[in-house]
């Protein structure tokens, strides 16, 4: 990368020295650090106690509380469920990530497949269809790790309508369960808990400030 700013090793060194001097009496040596971290108290709830059915019901309830529209379908009906949502959206142009199953691109609509689309092209689309990495029932959160089927970040941001396909098997009950599912920390991640909102004016909650104003979820019952 082409960066012209002079490094300022002196401030770096000075800050690190000050930090080390400030904490020298409590800082752990390299070996002990691992153990000290492992010994941190973690008495909070890590895995939830809900049955499979109740877990999915909670996820759907939370999503609906946020004003998201949720429809359920069997693993065989995903295509039909998507088509129905598209038809009732009243929209015509959609962007999709390149990694999305081609079978989901219902004929009769205009599909722009994201092969380095520029922002203005994405902005002109009326909606976007993506997959997801995980759902967290406790808070109704949809987790995107922005893989090939989950789209680049900008795709789920500019269009006003987002249809997200979530599989029951991807839904966990608690946030710690999601972290346990990450074999490796994602480089990019977005956690969406309902459409964008603000309460900045007299604490009145207004939906849809900048992100998509409408969130639709197809819940695939594959468990």
């Amino acid at each position: 990368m082409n960066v012209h700013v002079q490094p300022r090793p002196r401030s770096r060194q000075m800050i690190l020295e000050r930090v080390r001097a400030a904490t020298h009496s409590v800082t752990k040596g390299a070996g002990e650090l691992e153990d000290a971290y492992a010994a941190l108290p973690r008495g909070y709830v890590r895995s939830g106690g809900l049955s499979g059915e109740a877990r999915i019901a909670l996820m759907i309830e939370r999503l609906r509380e946020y004003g998201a529209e949720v429809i359920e379908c069997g693993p065989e009906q995903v295509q039909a469920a998507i088509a129905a949502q598209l038809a009732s959206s009243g929209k015509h142009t959609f962007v999709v990530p390149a990694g999305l199953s081609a079978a989901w691109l219902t004929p009769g609509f205009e599909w722009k497949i994201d092969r380095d689309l520029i922002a203005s092209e994405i902005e002109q689309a009326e909606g976007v269809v993506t997959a997801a990495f995980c759902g967290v029932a406790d808070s109704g959160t949809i987790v995107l790790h922005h893989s090939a089927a989950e789209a680049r970040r900008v795709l789920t941001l500019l269009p006003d309508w987002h249809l997200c396909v979530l599989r029951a098997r991807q839904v966990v009950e608690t946030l710690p369960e999601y972290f346990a599912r990450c074999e490796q920390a994602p480089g990019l991640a977005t956690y969406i808990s309902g459409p964008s909102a603000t309460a900045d004016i007299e604490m009145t909650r207004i939906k849809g400030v900048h992100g998509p104003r409408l969130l639709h979820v197809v819940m695939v019952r594959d468990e």
Partner: protein
Amino acid sequence: MSHGSYHPILDPTKAPAFPSAVLPVLRNPQLRKNVAHAIDVIQAKRGKLVAEKTDWQELRTAGAAIRAHALENLGFYLEQFEERCTAAGGVVHWAADAAEARQIIVKLLREENASEVIKIKTMTSAEIQLNPFLESAGVRTYETDLAEIILQLGEDEPSHIVVPALHVNRSQVREIFSRTMGLKDLSDDPKELTNAVRTYLRRKFLDIPTAISGANFLVAETGSVVVVESEGNGRMCLTLPRTMITLAGIEKVLPRFQDLEVMLQVLARSATGERMNPYTSVWTGVKPGDGPQKFHVVLLDNGRSSILAKKTERQTLRCIRCAACMNACPVYRQTGGHAYGSVYPGPIGAILTPQLMELHHARSLPYASSLCGACYEVCPVKINIPEVLLELRSRVVNQGRDQAGRLFDPMYLGLRIASLIFSRAWLFHTAQFFGRVGLRFLRRKDGWIHSLPSIGGKWTQTRDLRGLPSQTFHGWWAARKRETK
């Protein structure tokens, strides 16, 4: 602007002391009503969502321990963050103080030939007074958080760290927007006001190629940065520009990615009374094809390492800026944020600001508290704010005292003598005896002392003192024992 005649000063080096800074607020019933309303709404939501969490105390314990561990080993985790962030294509800069941070940022902007920049709400940028500096360097700044827009367009200052414009009501917002955006027919419906902003900012997001953000967390293990928000303006700034500059205090580091499972759960509930905030973004350096292709992190010390050095005060740096302490504070509820003369108001401001100023300024803030402890009780990372307040009070007193002249200071002498007497039982009993004898002459028939001689007179100017009873409890207890034998 929205309070008529006065403009709040949020620069601790220039702001008046708290007791005089509160006066304009206490005389402004509209402002007080706006603040109280906002706080009641957040408090009610927070209370409900905290109550439903059966493991709330365990989450607080874990949150406090993770933050304390990160701070105790900050040198290690900062270097680890730098290494991982750099490996992922980010560039890490270190700023010892506010001036250096401003300089670094301006230099980066010059290299980008940036004449405009979009910003996500960051209190750290307000701490280093970045916007006025950039404007004077010829860079126009656009705040993109709704509340920050209200303040920027209304030439006002933040009064809260999560809902910075909570002191402004809808008709005041309407007035500001219609005046500055030229929208004559705007109503005061929050929905319409919000839509006006959506339209106003859409083009800016698409056109301005440089953005500045703060960070809620830095993750040492992965070199990632985490931003928590509601509106989506953050995602816009993090995704659309070519160049991204993140300004973060050195204390923001978490050891591992997984630590977010605790921090995110306590942050949203404490800050806005939600189970989870609408949008959380995690990114790591630069990802080809997705988001800004140049990424800089400026790590800011600005007094933090000296806070770290003090045992009691170190906990101040655990703060995750959720604002629960100010929402719970009976003083903040009456005064709002501006009186604290800093971008960090409320209980956290009362301990953080004087320390960032190394007690050269903001010396009245440690006294802006009733020490009721409500802030400690709600703090998701268990910062014992009252304990730090007391520590700072004693430092303020010691610092203000001329060490050589202290033997002539009646307050110092009085308290030294009192401490001598209270630590020895026989001296205490003797003093009690003489006190009773002495005060008897001042006691009136009604059993009260109405005026004390000398400096004691100041005290009795506005109150009466009950005369001491003829027998102490100790005396009565001893006599009673003798009788029952």
